């Protein structure tokens, strides 16, 4: 009897062993060296693009399998990051983090050239974007997988109704467009509380004025012209372009120009109002279409290139007037858009535009300004924990994402761009909506991606309240309906300087 029981038990064990291996694909043993565990912050891009890429990657790389753990909660996604014993994630698709000491360098991803392509991944990335990502030790630890460019999105029908046939090329032209819209009973702008995406765009005007080199290597490096760092005088410098930006904003974002309640309603409400035609323009990003898909189609909306800050002529030698600037920008656009070549304007060392001689330096200065866009690629950032046991797999996944094949799939699903070009061919964006195409065209021709969140910005901007325009919101100060509270550019600047004078010493203590 005893042996009978043993025999039955053994048979049972044998049967139960049949349970293992009965199921799906791959070996999904926890934390395996061949399973890439992705922690994905689903902050608005959705799952489809990632699932598409995962499926294609697994087919291409059968040696790996991929597990995606997605959540919409930004606070939940990275709770284990930096805890090697508790963190099994191999690839974070999250937001920019300061914890690079726990991250694997991605230099080799950038140096890699995908089979069949002629350019390395690093060569395909926009240089100005990479410049913002290099850490102080010279390595790259984070690369984007989303976010996008930010610029003025406009309602084509409302522009047509107002008879606006040419998009504004300068901030003065933008102010004029606002006037024309108002004359046609169309509210020019809206934004969401407290100041929409103006925070990002203000820095573009600043960078346009001062030039990318100063913006990156002086202002955000906190190094003044005498080499002092960090420098209070740098922050209180009125002539570096930030005051000029405030003056431009004073003209283009007035109380008359914005939809009432812009300073108080949330972004979903104001974006819905914008989509419903309550105003003509709104600063928004590449994600606008995806984010608002439940409210309707983005057909009829397009993004425009950033107007050039009109006071840029202060830094020109061959042009000094708004009328001259608009002609120059029009010429630059004609080259950017492929209607003309630069040779059409070249004459010796200079350029001639509509009878006006422009130095090469001025042309290049305005060209870079015109083709600068704000971006928040840092808000969707990929990084690999240095303690991951599937680092190579994670890197292969990133390489696939940034390959021509992977990027095309990304584009096809999301209709939004990264600061990335194809290796040897143009991306196929024929499936994009008109909004998506406008974003793609602009992104593809952007020469400077401007961000306030460069990885390598000085610690004073990371660990204190030092900011390019302070912590008080500019736009509500200019547009409040309460006239007693409304500020001029000069009043705002003076308050900003006073705040720096008051807090500088404490900030220095905090970063020591």
């Amino acid at each position, binding site marked *: 009897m005893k042996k009978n029981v043993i025999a039955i038990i053994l048979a049972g064990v044998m049967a139960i062993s049949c*349970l293992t291996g009965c199921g799906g694909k*791959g070996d999904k043993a926890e934390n395996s060296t061949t399973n890439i565990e992705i922690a994905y912050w689903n902050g608005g891009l959705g799952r489809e693009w990632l699932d598409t890429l995962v499926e294609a990657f697994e087919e291409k790389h059968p040696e790996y399998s991929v597990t995606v753990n997605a959540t919409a909660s930004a606070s939940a996604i990275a709770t284990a990051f930096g805890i090697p014993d508790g963190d099994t994630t191999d690839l974070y698709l999250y937001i920019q983090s300061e914890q690079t000491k726990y991250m694997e360098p991605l230099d080799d991803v950038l140096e890699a050239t995908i089979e069949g392509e002629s350019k390395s991944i690093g060569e395909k990335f926009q240089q100005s974007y990479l410049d913002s990502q290099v850490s102080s030790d010279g390595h790259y630890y984070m690369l984007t997988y989303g976010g996008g460019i930010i610029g003025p999105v406009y309602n084509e029908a409302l522009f047509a109704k107002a008879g606006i046939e040419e998009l504004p090329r300068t901030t003065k032209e933008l102010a*004029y467009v606002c006037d024309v819209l*108002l004359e046609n009973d169309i*509210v020019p702008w809206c934004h969401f509380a407290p100041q929409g995406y103006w925070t990002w765009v203000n820095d573009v005007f600043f960078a346009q004025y001062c030039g990318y080199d100063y913006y990156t290597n002086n202002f955000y490096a906190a190094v003044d012209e005498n080499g002092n760092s960090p420098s209070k005088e740098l922050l209180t410098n009125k002539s570096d372009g930030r005051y000029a930006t405030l003056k431009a904003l004073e003209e283009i974002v007035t*109380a008359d120009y914005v939809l009432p*309640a812009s300073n108080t309603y949330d972004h979903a409400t104001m974006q819905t109002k914008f989509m419903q035609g309550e105003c003509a323009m709104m600063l928004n990003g590449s994600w606008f279409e995806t984010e608002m898909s439940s409210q309707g189609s983005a057909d009829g909306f397009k993004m425009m290139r950033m107007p050039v800050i009109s006071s840029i002529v202060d830094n020109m030698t061959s042009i000094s*007037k708004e009328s001259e600037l608009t002609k120059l920008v029009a010429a630059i656009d004609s080259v950017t858009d492929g209607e003309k070549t630069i040779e059409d304007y070249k004459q010796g060392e200079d350029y001639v535009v509509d009878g006006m001689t422009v130095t090469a330096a001025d042309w290049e200065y305005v060209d870079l300004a015109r083709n600068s866009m704000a971006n928040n690629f840092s808000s969707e950032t990929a990084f690999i924990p240095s303690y991951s046991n599937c680092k190579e797999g994670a890197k292969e996944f990133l390489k696939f994402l940034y390959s021509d094949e992977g990027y095309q799939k990304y584009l096809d699903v999301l209709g939004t761009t990264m600061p990335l070009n194809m290796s040897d061919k143009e991306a196929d964006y024929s499936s994009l909506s008109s909004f998506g195409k406008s974003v793609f065209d602009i992104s593809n021709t952007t020469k400077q991606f401007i961000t306030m969140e460069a990885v390598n910005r000085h610690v004073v901007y990371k660990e204190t309240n030092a900011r390019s325009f302070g912590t008080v919101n500019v736009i509500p100060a200019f547009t409040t309906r309460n006239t007693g509270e409304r500020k001029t550019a000069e009043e705002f600047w003076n308050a900003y300087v006073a705040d720096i004078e008051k807090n500088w010493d404490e900030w220095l203590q905090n970063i020591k």
Partner: protein
Amino acid sequence: MKKRKCFALAVTAALLVSVAGTLPVQAGSSQSIIDESSYATEINGAIWNNMDEDVLTKDGSLIFPAESTEATKLITKTVVESNHLCETVVKAEADITLTALPEAEIFAMALGLGSTRANIGDEGNIELRFEHKGTVKLSIVEIGEDEAEQVLLDNVSCGSVGKKVSVSARIKSDNTILVHLDGKEILESKLTSDGEGRVGFIQTGNCGAVVNNIVISTYTYSQPENCDMEEDFEKGYFNANYFQSELLSTAVDGTERAYIAIEEYEGNNVLMFRNVGNGYFSTKKMYSNFEMTFDVPYIQRTDVMNEDGTVAIPTSDCFAVVVGAEKCDTLDTGNSSEMIVFYSDTVWLYFQDERFPTTNFEFRAPDETRAFSVKVSLVDSVLTVSMKWENETEWVVLGTTTLEMADGYVQIVDPSVGALNFAIDNFKIVNKDLEPNLVEVEYKSAKLNVPADWNYEPITLNYEDVKADTDDGFNWYWLIPIVAAGCVISVVAAVMITGRKKRKAGDGHDA
């Protein structure tokens, strides 16, 4: 921009100054002034369009350089609008000293400009033109359709280049224009247009000028669409097209259920605020000039305790009236509105930081039992706050002040997280605009239609539709047949093993 108060002997009320724009419209009747403050240190880009940025400021004057072009101009962004309720549409004054005026060129102070880039001779312009015809001469020209010029006044001598002249042009709402030169009236004439548009200094080019002491006054009257409303809550529901209310958060203290709802109190229906932390009752129409009254039949003046010593209903916190709210679907105490907070001993205009003592109206005194009423009126930027005790007929004015406010919704709110325990009744709001723009509002009951009961239905789970959500790919539904197969195999194996042992035993071997 300098603000000035001035009082008119009109039927309406005093005219007070505020910054005007085309949107949003300042409530009531208002005068806007653009003056030296808009260019004293820098040209304010929110007020002026300085097209080529070549108009400069120096020592409180605007400088048009002699090297000017046609684009050297300064035009207001404000668009003047005519309103028959305002006698004057616009008045523009300036001292102008021409420093360069070639023959055949024109420098003008102009009204009725159609754009911030308007040029000399554009249709709709009303131009006070300075031209060099031997000496400096002033002509007044109205440009009509197809840019046809009608000369209203021709060649008034202004002396020579370098001499300062003071000019003033006033357009009235009956399309009359009055022009003064150095204090002397030189023209009173009818225009074919109403003078609506922008004001500016424009030229054909090469004209230099110093312009100072600019004063441009525009007059507006806001008449938003709304209606006179009265609500005594006796129906049990208010008109949801008139009003909106919402409890946003419960009070920190108080065990009684929190709500804002109509209920009976001493034989009448009232709108009860019970243990409200944040909440509001709002009009759904915006008001410019208005008078609002409501009764407060109940306010909790002492704590109501539970048997266990906890507080069921705390002493009421203060309540507030919000005027000029931008939104009606939330408690709007943004920086565009004003919140009038009623404490027991003071009424506090929160953002303007002005207080009116409520002597003799200490309505929250613990031993006070009387109901009271509140009146808030805002007419042409004059705010008046009044109260009276029940059964009194005369209102006592607690305070009057200037409140420059854009049109907005009117709300009764709990401004703090302290518990609001009070009730309102007989709410009334009356449009006090000249020629009120009243509209009919359909009745829509605010009653919520709640279904009789939730219709519970058993959920059918179709296992075939359930896809595994994990990537380990193990399909649990295989477990049953696998276990069944395992059991069969184990039984068969056991039988075989047992049978073999029996045969061996039969052959003389031990089991």
